[in-house]
């Protein structure tokens, strides 16, 4: 190991594996950890609003001490924060917190995703039923969707994200969420279990008929035409040249 590499190793050990030290060491340690905690607070604003800033920053500090960023793009920091919260003992009384963190993460990913036009509902409407059944719809790069068993995560997340009071009574049942970016800004809406499995199938590259089958398996009786219209209106699919356009 070179002298420079040895210096780095020792310096980091001093910051991470020890407390105290001279004032200067503490400044480096505090600056570094504050930058991590600030980034987490920026990336998980809904979690922070739910638990309050002091609780959030204390939890984020525990995460930051054991999971330093692995990328200079700090808007991506916190890849493992939802899983961390799921196993974080002080959060045991808040079982929905990890799900809320997953939706904050989804928002961040949607916000910075590649620009691409959304598939227009009219183009799909022009297709014959057979052509449509064989068609593969690609999710838009900014589309994110999640299903949460047994927990009203979307209700909690959206109310806090929009700085509204959580509606009462809160129904403890599974909920899904869809985040899209049809224009400049990220938007969100509730999504049923059929929609979540439909989009999963589309993301796997299955044609529309197979995706529809998957949706029906999880939610028999689903109105597929309405589901497809809802997803198209939200901008869940990326525009691609349709076969007859060639």
């Amino acid at each position: 190991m070179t002298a420079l590499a040895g210096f780095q190793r020792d310096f980091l050990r001093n910051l991470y594996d020890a407390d105290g030290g001279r004032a200067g060491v503490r400044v480096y340690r505090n600056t570094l950890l504050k930058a991590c905690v600030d980034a987490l607070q920026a990336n998980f604003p809904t979690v922070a609003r739910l638990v309050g800033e002091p609780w959030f920053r204390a939890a984020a500090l525990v995460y930051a001490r054991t999971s330093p960023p692995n990328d200079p793009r700090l808007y991506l920091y916190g890849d493992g924060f939802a899983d961390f919260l799921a196993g974080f003992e002080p959060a045991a009384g808040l079982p929905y917190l990890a799900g809320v963190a997953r939706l904050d993460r989804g928002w961040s990913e949607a916000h910075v995703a590649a620009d691409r036009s959304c598939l227009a509902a009219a183009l799909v409407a022009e297709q014959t039923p057979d052509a449509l059944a064989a068609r593969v719809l690609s999710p838009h790069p900014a589309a994110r969707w999640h299903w949460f068993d047994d927990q009203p995560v979307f209700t909690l997340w959206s109310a806090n994200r929009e700085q509204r009071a959580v509606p009462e009574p809160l129904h403890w049942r599974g909920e899904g969420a869809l985040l899209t970016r049809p224009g400049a800004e990220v938007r969100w809406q509730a999504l049923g279990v059929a929609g979540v499995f439909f989009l999963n199938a589309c993301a796997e590259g299955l044609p529309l008929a197979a995706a529809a089958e998957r949706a029906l398996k999880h939610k028999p009786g689903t109105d597929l035409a309405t589901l497809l219209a809802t997803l198209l209106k939200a901008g869940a699919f990326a525009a691609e040249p349709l076969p007859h356009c060639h």
Partner: protein
Amino acid sequence: MNAPIRPGAGLSLKPDYFQAARDCRAGGLWFEVHPENYMVDGGPRLAWLDAIAERHPLSLHGVAMSLAAPAPPDARHLRRFRKLVERVDPMLVSEHLAWSATGGHYYPDLLPFPRSDEALAVIADNIARVQDSLGRRIAIENPTHYLPVPGHRYTEQAFLAELCERSGCGLLLDINNVFISAHNLCFDAQRYLLDFPLSAVMEIHLAGHSVDAPDQAEDTGETLLIDSHDQPVADPVWELYRAVIERAGPVPTLIERDGNIPSFDVLLAERARAQALLERLESMP
């Protein structure tokens, strides 16, 4: 056209005032961003940066190249940096004399190192790699110091001059960093600046600082200044600045503000003070 073409005093660009920044027509105004925040695939952030770059000169001030690490810059990071340079065609690109990455992790701070022969060779090589990749000269910023590091073989000014000599890079002189370091390490800021290789300076930074709240349990009697960028520029830093530009000439100057951000008008007023000093120099024969 009544605005001077030459970039004078600039401001850090923050989402808090994107629109006011884009629409501002103050002469000589330019903006600086941390490129890491804009290394995105798409979306509104990049669209805003494009809108600013259409109307104002832009400077990319990197915080993550980790030039003082004993390893070449991360190839993926460098590629993203180059993509952004190609997109916004900045008037200036700068980085720090510090390290922040090792072992696959990124530590969001600007960490110190001994100014040794090994460090000089490593950093000069890393700067050359960055300049080759970006296809342009970059400016290297003097860091803030919070504690003495053993093993220096060069003064900071001599080290920076040698880096310029070996790699052809320029310098970014952060006068607030000099002021803070002088306080924290007990040296004379004015004397430091007399030895600074001013002919290589491509940009100057001015910023505010704060006093470290000493931890009572750990108090060792040291009271440090911190480069917090959350206050107006302090008067003694303005005084040092005035003396520097009298020797260096009208160098593009940034008012850095990253925290406790006031309204755009307040920042613009602070920036006008630097702009006036620069314009006074330009009007001199």
